[in-house]
């Protein structure tokens, strides 16, 4: 079925995502719930481990999507402008997985454990689906994944609230704190990039399926994390 509206592509995607924002917010609320008997330190460290597992895939995913665009450019009018956006965003996101390692270390986790620690299979579902769509559908799918991540940045007060609840030093919250400031600009840039692409209705559906799948799996991931007790391991 094709999209019948005259909305821009970014508006159409936002309208679809608005339907699921309450579910994503509820999952986040559950993740950060207060437990009077114990600080939520252990759950925060587990969150950092899983977010590192996900974010370390972001730049490689964008690099692979850019390579696929280069393969398509001669006959695909979306590929050229898409690769230019991806090249800019790769540089904006490069190194952010290292911030998470620093946060893990300050929060009492052990980055050396990463080699022995298998992330949640949900993380593999999140990144793995993007690899499939990049390889076998169209690399524009990755913008749906990026739209969900950039569109759900931490609130400006989250880092301070988590510091209060966990008793951890401010330095353990660099990733949360800095993305609260960075990602609103990134979202504006992404929406402009989406609207500049000559997308077909099929591309728009790929974008939306990718975005909604990302929301669905993030909710699953946060639900798993929410079941972890807050106290020391």
């Amino acid at each position, binding site marked *: 079925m094709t999209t019948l509206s005259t909305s821009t592509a970014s508006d159409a995607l936002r309208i679809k995502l608005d339907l699921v924002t309450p579910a994503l917010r509820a999952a986040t609320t559950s993740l950060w719930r207060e437990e009077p008997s114990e600080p939520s330190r252990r759950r925060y460290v587990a969150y950092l481990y899983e977010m590192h597992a996900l974010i370390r895939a972001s730049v490689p995913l964008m690099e692979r999507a850019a390579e696929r665009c280069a393969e398509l450019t001669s006959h695909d009018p979306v590929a050229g402008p898409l690769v230019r956006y991806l090249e800019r965003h790769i540089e904006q996101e490069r190194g952010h997985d290292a911030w998470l390692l620093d946060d893990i270390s300050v929060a009492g986790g052990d980055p050396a454990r990463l080699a022995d620690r298998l992330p949640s299979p949900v993380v593999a579902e999140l990144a793995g689906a993007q690899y499939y769509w990049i390889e076998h559908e169209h690399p524009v799918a990755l913008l749906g994944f990026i739209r969900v991540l950039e569109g759900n940045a931490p*609130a400006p007060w989250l880092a301070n609230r988590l510091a209060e609840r966990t008793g951890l030093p401010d330095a353990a919250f660099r990733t949360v704190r800095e993305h609260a400031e960075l990602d609103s600009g990134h979202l504006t840039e992404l929406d402009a990039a989406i609207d500049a692409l000559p997308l077909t209705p099929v591309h728009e559906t790929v974008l939306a399926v990718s975005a909604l799948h990302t929301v669905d799996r993030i909710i699953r991931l946060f639900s798993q994390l929410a079941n972890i007790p807050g106290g020391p391991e």
Partner: protein
Amino acid sequence: MTDDHAALDRLRSAGFNVDALGDEQISVLTGLSEHELELLEDIKRRLDDAEPEVRAHGDIAGGALF
């Protein structure tokens, strides 16, 4: 009933408040694909399964992604 109404009916049956949506939203959502509808229904079920307190305070939680 026409195909144009089928997507909206699916959303309404899933518990989305379709009748509160504006013209632009209706226009976009009328064209939802089967895969989009399945994902929306799945996510709505997850919200419905959440505890009432979590649903009530979800609007002030912000995000946690980057």
